[in-house]
């Protein structure tokens, strides 16, 4: 080892100790529960796990979760694109405040978010009472689940896009404008190709969170089987009924989704379109 390296690192024994300690702690804390979860799902063989996924309750939950993600992820992407465009293409006062407000869902407990939605749209509130009278209940119904999911996934796409768009600047868009391109043409042919990677990363993360959200949805959904019980809510109900294989089989599906999300995110990072998973 060269002298240069030796003064800027630790003794080899210490290095090995640190790697072992950090890696070991991580394996015990994160990896072990994951392995145990898959083992529980397969405790009665793969047939039993697959059969429990085909049960009507599980199928309804999967359909609902897919529907909620299909509504919320595109809406979140439109919001993220609009917010990032506004924040990075224009100069105005109050940007810091606006960014703090967009980030707010990251620092609010999902349960408090659900509570806030119940207070606004619940049958006891004036707005909620009126909506129930119109035949469009929000709380204990699909709109509530959608709003709760939108709340917790709100910052993801904007957070992924803003740093990338700040770095890229607006010179290319300005050049396209001087050459006579219209606004939408500039967006679709100049901006969008440059931010595709970051947009995809943000959408992936928002999707993983949308399909996995528990706390906020638990509060607003009312946990009605076959109607407002998403996959995570159904996992809780099955688990509390001691239907362990069924609960862990559904959990394994979500775990596989999380692993796929991580894999895609890692590949995007390696291709150079990163975005912090935490959104920060």
């Amino acid at each position: 080892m060269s002298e240069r390296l030796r003064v800027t690192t630790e003794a080899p024994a210490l290095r090995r100790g640190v790697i072992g300690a950090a890696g070991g702690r991580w394996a015990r804390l994160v990896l072990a529960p994951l392995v145990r979860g898959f083992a529980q799902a397969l405790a009665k063989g793969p047939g039993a796990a697959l059969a429990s996924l085909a049960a009507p309750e599980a199928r309804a939950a999967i359909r609902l979760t897919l529907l909620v993600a299909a509504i919320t992820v595109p809406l979140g992407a439109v919001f993220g694109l609009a917010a990032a465009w506004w924040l990075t293409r224009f100069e105005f006062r109050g940007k810091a405040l606006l960014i703090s407000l967009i980030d707010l869902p990251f620092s609010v407990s999902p349960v408090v978010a659900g509570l806030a939605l119940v207070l606004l749209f619940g049958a006891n509130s004036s707005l909620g009472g009126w909506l129930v009278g119109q035949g469009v209940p929000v709380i204990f119904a699909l709109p509530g689940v959608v709003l709760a999911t939108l709340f917790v996934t709100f910052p993801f796409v904007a957070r992924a896009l803003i740093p990338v768009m700040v770095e890229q600047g607006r010179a290319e868009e300005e050049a396209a404008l001087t050459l006579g391109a219209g606004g939408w043409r500039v967006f679709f042919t100049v901006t969008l190709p440059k931010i595709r990677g970051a947009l995809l990363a943000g959408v992936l993360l928002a999707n993983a969170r949308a399909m996995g959200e528990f706390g906020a949805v638990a509060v607003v959904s009312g946990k009605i089987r076959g109607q407002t019980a998403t996959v995570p809510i159904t996992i809780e109900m099955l688990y509390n009924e001691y239907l362990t294989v069924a609960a862990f089989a559904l959990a394994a599906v979500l775990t596989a989704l999380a692993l796929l999300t991580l894999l895609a995110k890692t590949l995007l990072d390696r291709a150079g379109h990163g975005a912090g998973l935490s959104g920060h």
Partner: protein
Amino acid sequence: MARSFIQPSPMPGLGLSAGITLAMLALVVLAPIGALLVQGASLGAEGLWAEVNRPRVWAALGLSFRLAALAAAVNLGLGLVLAWALERYDFPGRRLLDAAVDLPFALPTAVAGIALTALYAPSGAFGALAARLGGRIAYTEAGIFLALLFVGLPFVTRTVQPVVAEIDRELEEASATLGAGRLTTLRRVIWPMLMPAALTGFALALARGVGEYGSVIFIAGNLPMQTEIAPLLIVIKLEEFDDAGAAAIGVAMLAISFVMLLAINLLQVWSRRRMGDV
């Protein structure tokens, strides 16, 4: 006029992008949080205090904030070590571990909750080990702590890692040539550079831990006054149709979180000013 706030720009789409942003922000985030604050305000200071000043509420708030702070502190140390090892050391599986650090972010909390419980309950491998040693993890404070450790693990690692990557090794060499031992260099040269990012990660992990629900309730036992976290108490109050009680706890959580995050921000400003911005 709003125009005076906005500098003129040839860019198109100002009205559309600002309109979509503000409309969705108002509907999805500001209106519900506003409704919570209005509900809290309608109780008045005395009403809020009466709802919060109950032994069961204090116990839940104390438990949530105490364990979240403890877990964030442990994650601060573990995250610093992980970030350092991932950036500075070469070892088999480094890239895999680097990718997998984010797993707690991607994994749904309910899934993490039942998996941790299966492992740490007396019937699970680690739970059985603890039982043989005469201890219990699941359904005690230790279980809640473990769940919060799990969900908070990536925050410090991910905020510190890019800063470690940016460190100029010549600073360490200069420190070494001036006669500093490795430990002194780490403490006096490296740590001041990492501290603001580490504090950011700590604050994020703390905020997450205070509000965490899904991964905790399965392993917590949920006994009032003992292992009942504040978010669970909000859910229970809502199930009892006690909107005022739930709103009071929600407002208290927001207020305490706000004060803590403000304090951490001030600490960051102070450390930047003292150590110089890096």
